[in-house]
């Protein structure tokens, strides 16, 4: 078996792993990044396309969290992780959320003021921008509906960079990890091993000494052993606890999965609203945050067809005029606690998440508010979210959705998963300490969405980057 050596092994190359690798490499440490997925450019497939799903999504996008209502979740499985496939929306969580985390989980040095510096730095280092050229037609509907109802709505900044071309046009590009921190890490000497899955960590007392991994190249598999001084696990909220548990590390790991359940509906307007050439719409209703977020989803023909499938008799007529339809969502801060467990003989872990009664009530409220929003914006009908139910054609019919969402008859999805190795000094509920080091171990750290103690109530990538930056700087004593 081939043996590799490094000072710091970083497992996973998403926002947490890329941040860790860049800082460690720039501090002069010999860094090896291991990523299970392939090394692809951001342009390797159109965003939200079937080709992108096949290339960059774990299990081609077919990953469920089981419960009374199953939740389909999406994880990136490529260099750059989730940052390569998400909407790249950037938020800072509310100061009250951070205060609450600090108090409940006893996190040292975690005041909102201290984190402000990290968020400022993330914005500067990765790049955050708003979209030039005004809102897309779908967002215009969201804004119009919110204005009619007296609700606050605004454009959400993104990890994005716009550059003016020779012809004067502004062209934007997502600042995913392959466009920002991974090149920075490589420029500082970090090595990157893609298509390599870490099987387990080898432990010796209170230390990890090596990792065993399988590298795939040209259809051949090769086992390798990687020896290191320190290891940082940053494989995401599902794969990080799965790896730690495969390695025999189980205390408070994978017991507290939290997520943002999301319900989508297709909405028909009397005029064209869907224009996929704009990319993903970036406006959200602020009124009910952080518990509830309303927004618009990517609305290409395949996505609209997906949300209409099996739902309406007139679907053929609708699909002839698919640009009159758009997909909207209601996302909530879930209150349940799920789990991640390995299954003997299977590669993929079993993920469970129970939607609580409170979650179902909040989802119902979300669909109700979403209905109010789109009808105030001029919608003709709202299709979904209850499978087989007739479309809602009048705001007066929304009441039945508010209190009547049935388990198992609604499609719930998420791309925001976290909290499987919560950080803090409270030994009853925290897997890692206030800076990501695994309790009871000297050289094993976690630095990704897993360490978020609870739901941030907003798109979490900014929070993950800010906390990863804070924790790696502590690790390096900077």
């Amino acid at each position, binding site marked *: 078996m081939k043996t590799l050596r490094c000072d710091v092994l970083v497992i996973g190359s998403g926002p947490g792993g890329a941040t860790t690798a860049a800082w460690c490499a720039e501090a002069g440490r010999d860094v090896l990044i291991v990523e299970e997925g392939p090394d692809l450019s951001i342009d390797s497939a159109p965003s939200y396309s079937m080709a992108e799903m096949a290339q960059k999504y774990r299990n*081609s996008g077919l990953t469920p969290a089981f419960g009374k209502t199953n939740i389909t979740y999406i994880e990136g499985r490529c260099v750059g992780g989730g940052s390569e496939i998400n909407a790249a929306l950037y938020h800072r969580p509310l100061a009250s959320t951070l205060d609450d985390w600090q108090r409940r989980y006893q996190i040292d040095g975690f005041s909102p003021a201290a984190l402000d510096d990290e968020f400022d730095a993330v914005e500067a280092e990765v790049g955050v921008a708003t979209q030039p050229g005004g809102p897309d037609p779908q967002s215009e509907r969201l804004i119009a509906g919110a204005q009619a109802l007296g609700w606050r709505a605004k454009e959400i900044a993104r990890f994005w960079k716009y550059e003016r071309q020779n012809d004067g046009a502004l062209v934007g590009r997502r600042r995913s990890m392959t466009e920002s921190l991974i090149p920075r890490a490589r420029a500082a000497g970090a090595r990157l091993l893609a298509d390599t899955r870490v099987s387990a960590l080898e432990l010796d007392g209170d230390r990890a000494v090596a990792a065993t991994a399988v590298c795939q190249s040209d259809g051949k598999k090769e086992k390798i052993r990687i020896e290191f001084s320190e290891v940082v696990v940053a494989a995401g909220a599902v794969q990080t606890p799965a790896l730690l548990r495969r390695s025999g590390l189980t205390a408070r790991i994978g017991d507290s999965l939290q997520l943002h359940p999301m319900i989508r509906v297709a909405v028909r307007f009397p005029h064209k609203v869907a224009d996929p050439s704009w990319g993903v719409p970036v406006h959200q209703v602020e009124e009910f945050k952080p518990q509830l977020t309303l927004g618009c989803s990517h609305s290409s023909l395949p996505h609209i067809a997906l949300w209409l499938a099996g739902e309406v008799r007139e679907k053929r007529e609708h699909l002839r005029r698919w640009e009159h339809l758009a997909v909207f969502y209601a996302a909530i801060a879930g209150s349940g606690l799920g789990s991640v467990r390995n299954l003997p003989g299977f590669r993929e872990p079993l993920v469970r998440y129970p939607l609580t009664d409170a979650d179902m009530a909040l989802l119902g409220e979300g669909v109700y508010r979403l209905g109010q929003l789109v009808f105030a914006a001029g919608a003709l009908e709202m299709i979904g979210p209850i499978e087989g139910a007739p479309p809602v054609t009048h705001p007066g019919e929304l009441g039945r959705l508010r209190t009547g969402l049935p388990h198992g008859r609604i499609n719930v999805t998420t791309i925001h998963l976290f909290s499987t190795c919560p950080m803090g000094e409270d030994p009853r509920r925290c897997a890692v300490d206030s800076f990501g080091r695994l309790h009871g171990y000297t050289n094993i750290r976690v630095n990704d969405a897993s360490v978020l103690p609870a739901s941030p109530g907003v798109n979490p990538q900014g929070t993950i980057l800010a906390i990863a930056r804070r924790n790696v700087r502590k690790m390096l004593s900077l």
Partner: protein
Amino acid sequence: MPVPPLDGDLATVRRSLWPLMRVIVDTVLRGEVEGEPDPVLVDDTTRLLSEKLVAMPRYLGIGMVGATWTFNQWAISTAGRPFDRLPPEGRRLALARWQTSRFGLMRSFTDFYGKMGIFLYYSLLEERGVHP
């Protein structure tokens, strides 16, 4: 019905399941799209679905293979023949029974073929610049 060259993981299972999967996809598309579905697109949608079968977590993939086989045999109890030997109207009814079943597993099965099949079909159309 010729089986296309399928290789990679679970190739044998996918090859043996291909004719049945194609009949299910054809039935789904007849219910959803305008006119007669293009046989080339039915083939391609089936191929992509069979790739999804391999890509999904193995414990689910095995379940879906079993469910596909069970779905075929189930029609014997309700229509006297396996699904793949039913006339088109019989197939539509058999699929509808599972789509509206009170059992979540049966609906999950039809979701895989229905929703994912439709997504892939329209993705293929979009790739080829064809609009409905």
